[in-house]
């Protein structure tokens, strides 16, 4: 029998084809119940509007629920209309059906609200569910949906947990069906989150969507990885007393307690479910509540540094593939009373096919990174869209001019007031296009000001604000996230990528950055090369103290460094040229007596050459890290780690060498004898300036136990006691920005340490040039080099008699 029913099910599946995948609508557990009106009478007999408080309240504590919710206005209007408008203040019940039935009729609900039938809003939500029918005069209940006792029949009880598309009905575009291509209604304000930021919640691959997205076929990622991985909105935005998710008083728990099983049981929760949903990182699950991200980011060097400065979204929401509002100009009004909106992320303007902007080419946009203030007081970069809003205010203190007042200014009867057409219709076609609807002249501004004043608006003036809209959804997995170091660590860094703002300047005003307590404006308004207004983030602002390797540098230091290296190179080149010329002029005079001496021990040569390789390596990798664009052949992250390994080698090698010199006493060679030291230095300097061209012998003999001349001693004194230690310390502290950030921060952080490190690097490079050149000043150009390689050097045996200081 079991087998038979299985067969029948399969046959059923086949017969009904795709439709078989839509699961049964009937609630698997919710009991049947009567729909009650506000007096507690069944609506099936009274015909009155449904009262959700009475209906649901017969089992659930609706009083508690309405006191514990942010959705208590019945989802009256989409949130956050810009500019703040006065909204009709209708007292309506909290609308349970909107979130707890599978196919609520939101359009009918909105229609009921906007036509002033707020008390019918809950009833209207059930239109087309088989329970309620909209009629010319209002709403009627279908008798066949109710049993004799007035309770809904079981098949009509479709009560369910909220699905993502329930939330999406008001909050933004949610598309859960992978088989039906997703489309985007550009400018649909009812999908608020999509409208303002371009965030789309769907498990569908973008390449399978029906939106006209540039390069769509290659964008095989899904819109949102959490939707793809079967998460619902309420998995993160859970009810704060849902016992599955919530631990009460977690912060008060003693440290040894990992899990506190004492919590509300399901019965209690179902009776009194809090409808406050977790939002914000203090209550809600943040990325870290579910992800131990460090485990999946082993490839990412400087993990702590990156995660303390960047939110997860900075890399995991790199691009939005839907248009978003860029500018809303409410200083003017379209014929239907709406403001003039412009969008980012579309190209070639809005193309509509029978009113539907399906053929508009969507290019998407890259969000701007702003310093977001986190709940714990820390701050990190996070992606935002910036919307410039323009609107009229009047009075003192300033109040936004209401939509109705503005309508009276612009509109008259079914169209625009004649004065408005006369002033705005620049092409004379009798119509006002979006482009014409702009306060781009003093005359137009004056006209509107005057008409507002005529309405009794005192001192009307235009306000322009740049408003940040945070982006936390549309998250994608690692494969598509920003992973290439140079996306940030380069001249064209994402971190400082500018975001173009609107092109409008109503009344000749410039917008201001709105003060928003969750955002620190780490940048300023600017004009780009094309003269467009942009928001330009910066790395070093009072709110952000960043030094981005590969992007940031102190120009003066680099210019000085280049000049120093060039001048030094020029100097040694001239010196070398003069030596060559003078040597040619000079008759070959007798070689001084020579003696082969064992100059450098094996260890001395070993540590010297190791240091040579390491220093060249450090210089090169340092340059790559400093200016990755100039060395795009090399992998940035690899160069950073090579630099670190080389640095460790340098330190170890230097420490061992120091130990050797101390123990063997060779250290004495590096310490100048105070007596006559300056005289000796001058003597040596004069030799380089004069004697060397005359073929004079060296003023100081080079011996196994005294290899250094006074100038060398002085140079090494500075090199080994000042430059090298400073370079090691600044380098270690920069590395320490990851390992011991407090110490690095105390010393000014990367913005101080890094340029200092760069400066010393330039000086060291200069030293290397001189050092290498100086090796050619032995009795033959290669003698010193040879000695450092083979250990033996031919040195002059005696102090020449004719030598003069």
């Amino acid at each position, binding site marked *: 029998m079991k087998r038979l029913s299985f067969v029948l099910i399969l046959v059923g599946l*086949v017969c009904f084809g795709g439709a078989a995948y839509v699961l049964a609508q009937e609630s698997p557990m919710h009991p049947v119940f009567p729909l009650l009106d506000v007096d507690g009478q069944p609506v099936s007999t009274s015909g009155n509007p449904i009262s959700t408080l009475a209906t649901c309240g017969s089992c659930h504590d609706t009083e508690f629920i309405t006191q514990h919710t942010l959705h208590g206005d019945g989802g009256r209007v989409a949130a956050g209309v810009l500019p703040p408008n006065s909204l009709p203040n209708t007292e309506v019940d909290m609308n349970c059906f909107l979130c707890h039935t599978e196919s609520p009729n939101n359009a009918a609900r909105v229609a009921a609200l906007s036509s002033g039938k707020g008390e019918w809003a809950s009833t209207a939500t059930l239109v087309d569910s088989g329970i309620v029918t909209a009629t010319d005069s209002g709403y009627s209940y279908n008798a066949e949906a109710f049993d004799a006792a007035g309770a809904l029949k079981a098949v009509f009880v479709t009560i369910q947990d909220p699905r993502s598309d329930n939330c999406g009905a008001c909050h933004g575009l949610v598309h859960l*069906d992978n088989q039906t291509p997703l489309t985007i209604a550009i400018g649909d304000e009812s999908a608020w989150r999509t409208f303002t930021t371009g965030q789309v919640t769907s498990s569908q691959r973008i390449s399978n969507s029906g939106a006209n997205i540039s390069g769509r076929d290659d964008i095989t990622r899904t819109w949102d990885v959490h939707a793809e991985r079967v998460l619902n909105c309420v998995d993160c935005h859970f009810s704060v007393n849902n016992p599955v998710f919530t631990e009460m008083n977690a912060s008060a728990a003693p440290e040894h307690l990992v899990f506190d099983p004492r919590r509300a049981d399901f019965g209690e929760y179902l009776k009194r479910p809090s409808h406050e949903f977790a939002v914000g990182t203090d209550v809600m699950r943040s990325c870290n509540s579910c992800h131990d991200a460090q485990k999946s980011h082993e490839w990412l060097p400087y993990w702590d540094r990156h995660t303390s400065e960047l939110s997860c979204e900075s890399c995991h929401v790199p691009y939005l593939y839907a248009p978003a509002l860029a500018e809303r100009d409410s200083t003017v009004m379209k014929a239907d009373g709406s403001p003039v909106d412009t969008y980012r992320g579309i190209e070639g303007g809005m193309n509509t096919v029978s009113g539907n902007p399906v053929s508009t080419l969507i290019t998407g946009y890259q969000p701007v990174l702003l310093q977001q203030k986190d709940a714990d007081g820390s701050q990190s970069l996070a992606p935002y869209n910036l919307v410039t809003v323009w609107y009229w205010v009047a009075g003192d203190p300033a109040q936004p001019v209401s939509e109705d007042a503005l309508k009276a200014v612009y509109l008259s009867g079914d169209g625009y007031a004649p004065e408005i057409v006369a002033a705005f219709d620049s092409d004379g076609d009798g119509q006002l296009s979006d482009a014409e609807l702009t306060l781009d002249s003093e005359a137009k501004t004056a006209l509107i000001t005057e008409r507002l004043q005529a309405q009794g608006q005192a001192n009307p003036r235009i306000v322009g604000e740049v408003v940040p809209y945070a982006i936390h959804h549309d998250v994608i997995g690692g494969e598509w996230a920003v992973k290439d170091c140079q996306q940030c660590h380069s001249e064209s860094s994402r971190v400082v990528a500018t975001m173009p703002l609107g092109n409008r300047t109503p009344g000749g005003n410039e917008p201001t950055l709105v003060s928003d307590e969750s955002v620190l404006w780490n940048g300023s308004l600017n004009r780009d090369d094309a003269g467009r207004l942009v928001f330009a983030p910066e790395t070093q602002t009072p709110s952000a103290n960043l030094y981005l390797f590969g992007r940031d540098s102190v120009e003066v230091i680099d210019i000085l460094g280049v000049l120093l290296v060039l001048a030094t190179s020029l100097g040694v080149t001239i010196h070398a040229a003069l030596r060559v010329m003078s040597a040619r002029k000079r008759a070959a005079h007798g070689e001084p007596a020579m003696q082969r001496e064992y100059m450098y021990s094996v260890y001395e040569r070993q540590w010297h050459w*190791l240091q040579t390789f390491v220093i060249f390596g450090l210089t090169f990798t340092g340059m790559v890290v400093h200016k990755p664009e100039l060395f795009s052949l090399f992998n940035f992250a690899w160069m950073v780690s090579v630099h670190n390994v080389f640095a460790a080698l340098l330190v170890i090698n230097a420490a061992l060498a120091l130990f050797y010199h101390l123990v063997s006493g060779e250290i004495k060679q590096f310490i100048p004898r105070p007596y006559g030291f300056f005289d000796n230095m001058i003597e040596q300097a004069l030799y380089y300036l004069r004697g060397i061209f005359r073929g004079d012998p060296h003023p100081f003999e080079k011996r196994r136990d005294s290899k250094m001349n006074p100038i060398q001693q002085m140079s090494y004194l500075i090199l080994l006691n000042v430059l090298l230690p400073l370079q090691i310390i600044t380098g270690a502290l920069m590395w320490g920005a990851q390992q011991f950030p407090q110490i690095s921060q105390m010393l000014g952080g990367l913005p101080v340490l890094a340029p200092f490190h760069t400066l010393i690097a330039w000086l060291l490079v200069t030293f290397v040039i001189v050092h290498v050149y100086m090796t050619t000043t032995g009795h033959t150009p290669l003698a010193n080099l040879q000695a450092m390689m083979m250990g033996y050097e031919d040195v002059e045996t005696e102090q020449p008699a004719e030598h003069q200081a």
Partner: protein
Amino acid sequence: MRSPNYVWLAGLGVTLILIGLPLYLFTFDPPVAAADPWSNVPDRSTAGTDHTALIKGPFETGSDVTKACLSCHEDAGEQMIGTAHFTWLSEPEAIPGRDGEPQRIGKANLLNNFCIGVQSNWTSCTRCHTGYGWTSADYDFTKTENVDCLACHDQSGMYVKAAAGQPAEGVDLVYVAQSVGTPSRQNCGACHFDGGGGNGVKHGDLDESLYFPPESVDVHMGEFDFLCVDCHQTTDHQIKGRSVGVSAQNTNGVACTDCHDAATQHEDSRITEHLDTVACQTCHIPATALRDPTKVEWDWSQAGQSGRAESQHTYLKIKGAFIYENDYIPQYTWYNGTVSRYLMGDVVDPNVVTHINYPQGTIDDATALIYPFKVHLAKQPYDAINHYIIPPHTTGTDGYWTLFDWNSAMEKGAAAAGLSYSGAYGFVSTDMYWKQTHMVQPAENALTCTDCHGETGRLDWQALGYAGDPMTWGGRTK
């Protein structure tokens, strides 16, 4: 004294080691050698032998061509007459759910729920036989000159087979024979893409869109220009591969894992975990019949209605009513590689759907995986008193397609199949399962989590034997 040069070189070596070793240890990630799926794909960079100069003709019949072929390829004839492509029978195999000796089954002696049976309809059906002249049960399967070499080896595109598999009128046999080479998609497709009497009728995952498929239809043939025989590799004319439509056991099959190392292929361990329960095809073939529709229902009982509007995809008087589907979302069921099989004479219960072949395996069968299938439903004629399905005689001047007389068709069909006909016919519901294994999509088009899991998933978990969605209810334990 040691040579100073020697010391210098040693020093250089030590220095390089001192630098290289830490670099290697601290900055390199040793590359993981991935298995190369191409290593199992035949190299076809060298062209085959040009036969233009080798074959002279003239040829009177197809068999004349075969004799010419066999004069050089001496073993080919003997090889071919032993293959299922020639015998239309398997090697003896056990059939799940049946006792008794293993038996040979195949197109020659089985029923399906499309055109139903070969017996009594040989002349028409054997157009797709790799041989010449099979018109009756008395066909001589031992004569090597009966083999049709050209069906598979013609590369001119000018070879067409007609009744009884003979070359069609007007085929230039010399020209065709001179063109022979490695079987192309056209050779295989001519029969396999059109199985069941037309484009895409039978398989769902095989149709004429695969002659020149884009990558979005089949990644192997579209993006990488595979031939059928690149996967269905052939030794001595034995072609690898099997269909659940004509065989019961999982022998001689081609598997994705012949080339792909599924266990290391997926970066996400959760996907790798799925390999214990889900076949590669399940995720990588999200839908079939992508360009051309496939037949999902065939109602023979409506055949013979005069005056009804006819269309290839809805109704034909000779065949009855059809339903075709495009972008077919497969049915999913456990499958351990074997199928049950309806054999000639098996008694049917007219009140239930009879399985012509049914995938074996349940959630408790550790060797079974969830596989995608196309299911073809039919109402087909049966003996209403003896309760068995009879392959009606449909073709030819005395067949149902000409006379529209079921009793006559059943009687002749029963006789050819060795059954007796009671004189009363009816129609019985049957289904047939076709494993979906072609039209593999590029990885980025594979199914994602929500296609199966969550509220919008396509799997019926409870029908598969789970308590509920295994994501939240747990998977099967082995």
